[in-house]
């Protein structure tokens, strides 16, 4: 295995969440009853003509710009011809030799190892309808009948094609995850794999380490999670190595990933593959995107995930916390707001990515549906810093605030969670515990530190957790003459 190197390229299809379809005014609405968001254009009735959707063009330009692509001033639409019942015109309007975005890249990082994956092109096309086959297996071969739903037909689809720069299943997964993050940050698609609003196909080949030329590749389809993408690529690499080491040859073909079996199997070979007879779409004029539009798109890009992660790392957050915030815009916004009000970054990040995420998951609510505000986090962090609250009490307060019981000061008072940091009161408690346990001081003075924890625990119990443990510890040490 170590004698072989994998070469992987990924084709990604992203369904844009525009108000209307790519070439007609029908609503994009995935929940609608079958064949209710259709019109003469997306049903390809005789005489109907396509008109490009500007919102979709804006969406793909944002994706292209975010991936550092050159945005092409005059790109062309082509017809990709093939017959399939869920393709109403029996050709798909796509882009071919002059796509809208070219020559970009995406930076990825797998366990600290960074890589730059080239983006060959990003182009605009339209989605097909959906077929439902009337058979036990759901596959077309055994179907007695097929039902067609054209609601999805004509939904704007962006295809992102990577260079064959990916070298491992882990990189493949991270590339896909990072691309999803970028698109989600742009707000042009919800990029949900399980709902099919983003789909990844992997082109996989292997070659002996050190060889320049690529091996014969296969295209692997039907991965419905990042995990299955990684597994499918890993399986396909191993399969190809096995075949080659046994003296066989790889056939250029499309292979279907079977999630249950954990294997890939041939769908159709290149010999049977279709000639799409691309030619320029005569119903559309070249797509003109002038310099002002291109500049506006680039200027309006939000902070992208990589820059966001760098900023959070600079603020002292660990990688895990940073990634959690980058993946959740609402948490990230709350973080920025609280820090902007002066709260300690690490404290707030730990709360948001730990307690708050757990709370949201436990209650199955969104952050915006809770009562928490950035000011609450600032106040809470301040109360922790000045000793008013113990870290345990602070987490309790946080949960009560999320429940909507009030601001941190009110909640802490109502639940009597304020920390005792009155030295006199605490010293009395410490003296009481030491008096009840006369051997303790001696042990400490002899260098056994374990009893300190015992005393702190007793004091905490007596104060129902409100004592400031650091202050108690300091008191004990000073009484033992250690200060």
């Amino acid at each position: 295995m170590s004698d072989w190197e994998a070469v992987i390229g990924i084709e990604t299809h992203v369904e844009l969440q525009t108000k209307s379809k790519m070439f007609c005014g029908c609503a994009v609405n995935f929940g609608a009853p079958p064949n209710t968001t259709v019109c003469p254009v997306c049903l390809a009735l005789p005489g109907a003509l396509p008109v490009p959707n500007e919102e979709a063009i804006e969406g793909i330009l944002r994706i292209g710009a975010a991936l550092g692509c050159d945005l092409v001033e005059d790109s062309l639409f082509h017809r990709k011809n093939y017959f399939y019942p869920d393709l109403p015109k029996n050709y798909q309007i796509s882009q071919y030799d002059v796509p809208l975005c070219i020559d970009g890249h995406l930076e990825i990082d797998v366990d600290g190892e960074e890589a730059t994956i080239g983006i060959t092109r990003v182009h605009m096309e339209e989605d097909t309808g959906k077929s439902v086959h009337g058979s036990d297996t759901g596959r077309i071969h055994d179907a007695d009948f097929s039902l067609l739903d054209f609601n999805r037909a004509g939904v704007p689809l962006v295809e992102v094609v990577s260079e064959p720069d990916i070298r491992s299943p882990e990189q493949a997964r991270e590339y896909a995850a990072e691309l999803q993050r970028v698109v989600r940050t742009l707000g042009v698609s919800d990029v949900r794999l399980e709902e099919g609003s983003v789909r990844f196909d992997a082109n996989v080949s292997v070659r002996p380490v050190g060889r320049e030329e690529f091996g014969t590749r296969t295209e692997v389809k039907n991965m419905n999670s990042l995990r299955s993408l990684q597994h499918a690529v890993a399986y396909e690499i191993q399969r190809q190595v096995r075949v080659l080491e046994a003296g066989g040859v790889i056939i250029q073909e499309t292979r279907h990933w079977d999630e249950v079996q954990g294997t890939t199997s041939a769908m159709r070979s290149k010999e049977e593959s279709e000639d799409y007879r691309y030619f320029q779409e005569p119903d559309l004029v070249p797509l003109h995107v002038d310099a002002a539009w291109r500049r506006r798109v680039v200027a309006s890009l939000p902070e992208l995930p990589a820059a966001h992660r760098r900023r959070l790392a600079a603020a002292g957050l660990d990688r895990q916390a940073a990634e959690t915030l980058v993946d959740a815009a609402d948490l990230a916004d709350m973080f920025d707001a609280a820090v902007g009000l002066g709260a300690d970054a690490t404290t707030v990040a730990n709360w948001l990515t730990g307690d708050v995420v757990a709370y949201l998951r436990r209650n199955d609510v969104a952050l915006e549906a809770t009562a928490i505000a950035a000011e609450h986090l600032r106040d809470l962090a301040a109360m922790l810093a000045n000793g008013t609250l113990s870290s345990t009490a602070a987490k309790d307060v946080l949960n009560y605030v999320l429940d909507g019981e009030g601001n941190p000061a009110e909640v802490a008072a109502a639940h009597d969670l304020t920390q005792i940091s009155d030295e006199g009161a605490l010293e009395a408690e410490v003296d009481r515990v030491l008096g009840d346990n006369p051997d303790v001081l001696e042990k400490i003075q002899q260098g056994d530190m374990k009893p300190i924890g015992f005393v702190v625990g007793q004091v905490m119990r007596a104060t129902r957790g409100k004592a400031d443990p650091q202050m108690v510890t300091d008191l004990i040490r000073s009484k033992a003459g250690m200060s």
Partner: protein
Amino acid sequence: MTDLADLSIAAAGSGLRGGEFTARDLTDAVLTRAAITEAHLHAYLTLDQEGARAAADAADADFSAGTDRGPLQGIPIAVKDNMVTRGIETTAGSKILAGYVPPYNATVVDRLHGQGVVIVGKTNLDEFAMGSSTENSAFGPTRNPWNTDRVPGGSSGGSAAAVAVGSALGALGSDTGGSIRQPASLCGLVGVKPTYGVVSRYGLIAFASSLDQIGPFARNVRDAATLLEAVAGFDIHDATSYRGDTPDISSLMDAGVEGMKIGIVSELAGDGIDPEVNAACRHMYDALSDAGADLREVSLPATEYALSAYYLIAPAEASANLARFDGVRYGLRVDGETTEDMMSNTRAEGFGPEVIRRILLGTYALSAGYYEAFYGQAQRVRTLLRNEFADAYARVDVLVSPTSPTTAFAIGEKTSDPLSMYFADVCTIASNLGGDPSGSIPIGFDGDGMPIGFQIMAPALHEAQLFRLAAAVERLAGVDARPALATSEVRPA
């Protein structure tokens, strides 16, 4: 008294406004004419008598109420059956769409409705507008009103025959390689293909999208201008629609030809053109010269390759445009073991031989390994041709030639020889490849009494120059004959 069906659009319009007759009278006259002539001609695939009468009554109500929707209010117009009409069967002359009733109107149909036009019905055509004789209709040929043993030309032969015989006062046709101008020529009418993009194609069942244009048939130049003005203009539903101001069409019609620079296309003046047609055209060149026009020969060598380029580009686009007729969503369905079988059975059964021939030609021309040699080469010829025309238009205002190399030929004469049929487009296709406006004006008759047409080509968006010369040619030719079928007492067959 003149039968109302023989009135020009302009005369009918003033009669309606002067209260001499009603739109209902006019429509009844046209429907009566159709009842007499249809058995001889088969100009219509669908006559919408009920809809026509209702539209006429609505126009009359508008007249009574003082509402005037323009010069076509109450005028009976025919529409080629490749433009979709909501609630009225639309077949494009194909068995694959027999019985198909569209749920929406073509933009041109909506515009006619909005101007109070009475749509008489849907006219016959070569299947999917592929042909030059209307013999390729799945529902039987249309005959020429001047001689019913002859073809009316095509593919808009039904529209031409209807206007010539008076079963409509004007008609819309579509022109991909000459499908308005050639039948206009063969039926003694004015027919105009405007600049590509000037009339919306939304709702026109596509043959070759980069070449198709809708345009008018009328019995005189002014009526043709009126009908074109009614349907021209930007349409948001057609991305290839011209976004600028709708070009001027009729303002120069009385300007005369004094000083007008007219180029005679050398390549369309000799070999392959019928001597009688050539003679009539030469006679017109002399008349124009006498009237003060500046005529000169202009050579456009690329026109030699235009026909070949056209018969690669048009079928290539058609092969994709016609892919949607698969039996899945509408129209004919012939069942099969698998979905693929169903699709191919439907298409084999539903398409006629000429349509299948062109789909095969076009599919081949686009195939991997052949694309560059065929489709790519044809596109280069198209560019070359456009450049030659642009050069020519730098020197002359308009170009002229015969419209058709021959007058109307006999039914059945060319059906077994596709190449000779394709040659019928030799004079007309350059304007489609260039996207320029072009029209045919009747200038006389051959020895058999069949009409001869004169073609005028103008630079893109210069419809005004085209109509300026057309009006002059019309005055100089002074053609005032009507086909026997329109004037004699012909009984229903």
